[in-house]
């Protein structure tokens, strides 16, 4: 796979900043704790035709996990020193030798993890207050169990995630930082906002012209997005998700998801990005994450994923070889 890193140097500079001292570990969006717009001074720029201007290259890399780790269950934030320690730990563990039997993965050269988000939050999820994805509904649990009953981990490619298959990370998945290539480029024209997503390569072209959603017969992995401006904020509502999204791992959705995203430029180099997952068929309550996006000055590279996907044939082939081996063992006297 072409896992190209665009911002590694910037990542290292951030890392050094963190190691240099807790005071230096402040994220660039420190002026906007929790992502709130600071009072006064800042006036968001506008495009020549008068829309809020979100254009540019952005990255959302961070060491802050989507969900609050169990050992921090009662901690919404870290101290600056704790945050610096977490950042160092997350980056150094990538260079440790893998456990025996584990083929290992990319080392820190390939990963770019950034640092803890502003306000030292312990999770990107801010609602529910425990920082965790809420429990699935009984109906969703049943459907997931039924779809996986009697299946091994790699009977077919369909047992692997959409991400491993190089199809997409879907939504909101594609807007959540991963381990590398979490870069985005926003280009606006009158009536539309385009968000180029580096990872796996997706372009979200969001009409901001009041047109209706696609016919419900058209279901897509990335859904169908419509935008509107609310003051300085781009509000994007996405529906028409594929019902097959059920099978792709963490973000279980029965195609009933209604995703609402909000993009607000809160500083020259920061977009406050937040999304709310509203899917009563799947989750027992809606949930919201806040993920700052920071300006980067490096161009987006091609992410040719499927073209070099050795993972799927490797994983399936490995399982088939293991099964053949087990078969041989059985017939031995």
């Amino acid at each position, binding site marked *: 796979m*072409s896992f190209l890193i665009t911002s590694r140097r910037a990542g290292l500079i951030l890392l050094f900043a963190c190691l240099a001292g807790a005071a230096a570990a402040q994220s660039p969006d420190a002026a906007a704790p929790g992502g709130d717009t600071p009072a006064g001074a800042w006036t968001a720029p506008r495009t020549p035709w008068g829309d809020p201007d979100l254009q540019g290259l952005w990255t959302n890399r961070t060491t802050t996990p989507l969900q609050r780790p169990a050992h921090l269950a009662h901690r919404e934030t870290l101290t600056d020193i704790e945050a610096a320690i977490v950042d160092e730990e997350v980056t150094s563990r990538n260079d440790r030798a893998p456990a025996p039997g584990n083929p290992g993965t990319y080392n820190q050269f390939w990963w770019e993890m950034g640092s803890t988000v502003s306000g030292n939050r312990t999770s990107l999820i801010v609602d529910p207050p425990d920082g965790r994805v809420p429990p699935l509904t009984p109906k969703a649990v049943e459907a997931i169990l039924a779809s996986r009953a009697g299946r091994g981990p790699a009977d077919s*490619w369909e047992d692997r995630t959409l991400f491993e298959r190089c199809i997409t990370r879907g939504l909101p998945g594609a807007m959540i930082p991963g381990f590398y290539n979490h870069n985005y480029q926003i280009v606006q024209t009158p009536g539309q906002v385009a968000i*180029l997503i580096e990872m796996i390569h997706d372009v979200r*072209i969001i009409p901001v012209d009041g047109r209706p959603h696609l016919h419900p017969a058209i279901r897509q992995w990335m859904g169908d997005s419509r935008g509107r401006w609310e003051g300085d904020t781009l509000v994007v509502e996405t529906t028409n998700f594929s019902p097959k999204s059920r099978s792709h791992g963490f973000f279980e959705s029965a195609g009933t998801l209604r995703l609402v995203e909000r993009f607000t430029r809160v500083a020259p180099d920061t977009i406050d990005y937040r999304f709310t997952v509203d899917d009563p068929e799947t989750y027992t309550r809606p949930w919201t994450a806040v993920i700052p996006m920071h300006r980067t000055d490096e161009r987006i590279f091609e992410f040719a994923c499927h073209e070099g996907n050795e993972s799927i044939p490797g994983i399936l082939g490995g399982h088939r070889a293991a099964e053949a081996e087990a078969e041989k063992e059985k017939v031995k006297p």
Partner: protein
Amino acid sequence: MRLSRAVFVPVLLAVLGAEAGAQSPSYRAPRTADGKPSLDGIWQAINTANWDLEPHAARPGPLVPLGAAGAVPAGQGVVKGGEIPYQPWALAKRQEHRQNWLALDPEVRCYLPGVPRATYMPFPFRIIQGADTIIVAYEYASAVRTIAMTGAGDPPADAWMGWSQGRWEGETLVVDVRGFTDRTWFDRAGNFHSEALRVVERYTRTGPDAIQYEATIEDPKVFTRPWTIVMPLYRRLEPDVQLLEFKCVEFVEELMYGHLKKGAPR
């Protein structure tokens, strides 16, 4: 008077070039906010270039059950002068590709189509024209490339969709694309290139709903000289038209990995 071929060919090219440039000399495209000709919109080629860039008669397709639905339509070709100027070894290689189309064409495996093929695949694409960056988003395989209008620099690595530097020449967007892999084809007829490929594209609005598209293809490892394709691109005029998903990976997994499924015949 007898013209030698060496004189005749450049004269012919000059005449053809003048004709192409003379399509609608008076048309002035609407402007973007920064005063450039606007190419913004959803466009699509209507021709059979993806079947074969060169002139070709209709022929049956390779899959009997598809019948007429799978047959190949005829086309007058899009190459200026008709034929692609292959070096002899490369012409032989093209013929090999042609014999083994289904096994070898990267399109069959849902691979990124490269440039210029992405332009004339049977799918729409959208030009999103920012001032510093133009995004070209193709429906096929969610393929995409960005055209940097300032300072793209040298290609940092080989890429399926290349590395694009744009500039304006009057009414025309000129895009210099380099940094290709050798793994894309030009069409389903086996036409190909090496990693030395360089493509110079020219996009010129010729009316409210049309772009004249030209691409000059240079690859000294494969061709005897640069050659040019030319075709109109048409605006998709349906109300509320938008690019839809054609994430074809899931349509090729059985083809590519079927033999590795549990219980598959081995």
